[in-house]
């Protein structure tokens, strides 16, 4: 349990004595409580659960560990499962993939 969604802090303000922020989730904006992420500032990424930042995204760690995934040596041999439906690239918006 724990639907936590990452978002970017685009504004901070005080409300009723607690520190709040406006978080951008890629087009959706909602306010959230930042009391549990005291170190964040504008531009920080946080994980939001039920209207509260429960964690700050460690962007360096994320980049480092993701780079390791991208370097997996079997990646280049991966064949994605073929769609028997055969959805052709020209059927996707914008034409070919």
């Amino acid at each position, binding site marked *: 349990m724990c639907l936590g969604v990452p978002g970017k802090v685009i504004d901070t303000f005080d409300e009723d004595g607690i520190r709040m922020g406006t978080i951008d989730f*890629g087009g959706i*904006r909602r306010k959230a409580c930042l009391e549990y992420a005291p170190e964040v500032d504008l531009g920080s990424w946080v994980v939001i*659960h*039920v209207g509260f930042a429960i964690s700050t995204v460690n962007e360096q760690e994320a980049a480092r560990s993701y780079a390791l995934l991208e370097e997996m040596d079997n990646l280049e041999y991966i064949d994605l499962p073929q*769609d028997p*439906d055969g959805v052709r690239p020209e*059927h*996707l918006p914008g034409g070919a993939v």
Partner: protein
Amino acid sequence: MTPDPPTASEEAIEREVRAFAMRCPVPLEPGDTVLLGHGSGGALTQALIRDLFVPTLGGDPELSRMGDAAVVPLPDGTRLAFTTDGFVVQPAFFPGSNIGELAVNGTVNDLAMMGAEPLALSAALILEEGLPLERLAGVMASMAEACERADVRLVTGDTKVVERGAADGLYVTTSGIGVIPNGVEVGPERCRPGDRILVTGPVGSHGVAVMSRRAGIDFEADVRSDTVPLTGLVHAMLAAGDVRCLRDATRGGLASVLNELAQASGVSMTVVERDVPVLPAVKAACEMLGLDPLYVANEGVAVAVVAPEDTDAVLAAARAHRFGAQATVVGEVGDPPVAVRARSGLGTTRPLIMLAGDQLPRIC
């Protein structure tokens, strides 16, 4: 709130209701009540219509067909399409639109889904005492504009007022008639294995736009309702090839529509999940709330099932139209038994079942 004990006249009414219920062909338990889920467009709604309304109303074959509009042949052979819709959306004004425009477009689209040219609409308004006249005027102005854009006449109507506390401001019921041109045959029972499934635009926008104003799930969103009249788009597609059937994916979303079509045609359907277009902001909202965009309501998206040899042409025709610019093939019709499934990026499939009621936002 605990109800007050019934008065003598209320008891008499109760007896009448019981007496009627005994005559009803469908067994009803005393105490069975209407639930919000009955209005969600999912399995509960289908069950209510199929198990209570249709048998009680005599089992009319056109009614049982449960298309977006009914086809009523005139004595001279002209086929009239006839549809009705109630609009209770809350809040009445939401990003991109309002209940008035929604009502006009919704009814026009139901006619369009049968291949009809819309002719005329009626509008019955139920207004709550205390509704500011300015808001009412705003809704009416929207309806007028929408009619003009959809090239349809609003020719008759009705107005009732209910006491403060009922009707949430206002409810609108629109009915519409149109003529289905000769040679146009669309219907939910026409899908065949091998047919392609198309959507005319990105899904989930309307449901998220409405939710973005609702108390308790309140957030600013770059999402506007996608409500538009689809008549022109539909006719362009029908002219381009064999479109087996069309549905506008309103309550219950794409997944619910596909379930209805699969059931009506006795076929299976597979959707390739990553091919279904969703606007980024809609996707983000669904992530936040734990909602599946495949089940979220749309007001300006049609689902079309198309003969495989005509898919390219129909798709091109859709994309050439301003309301179909993002039309995409999202899946394929397969052999029976009846089933609807989604294929994941890992190549596994999961069923897209008909939900019982509305999706609820989740925290898990």
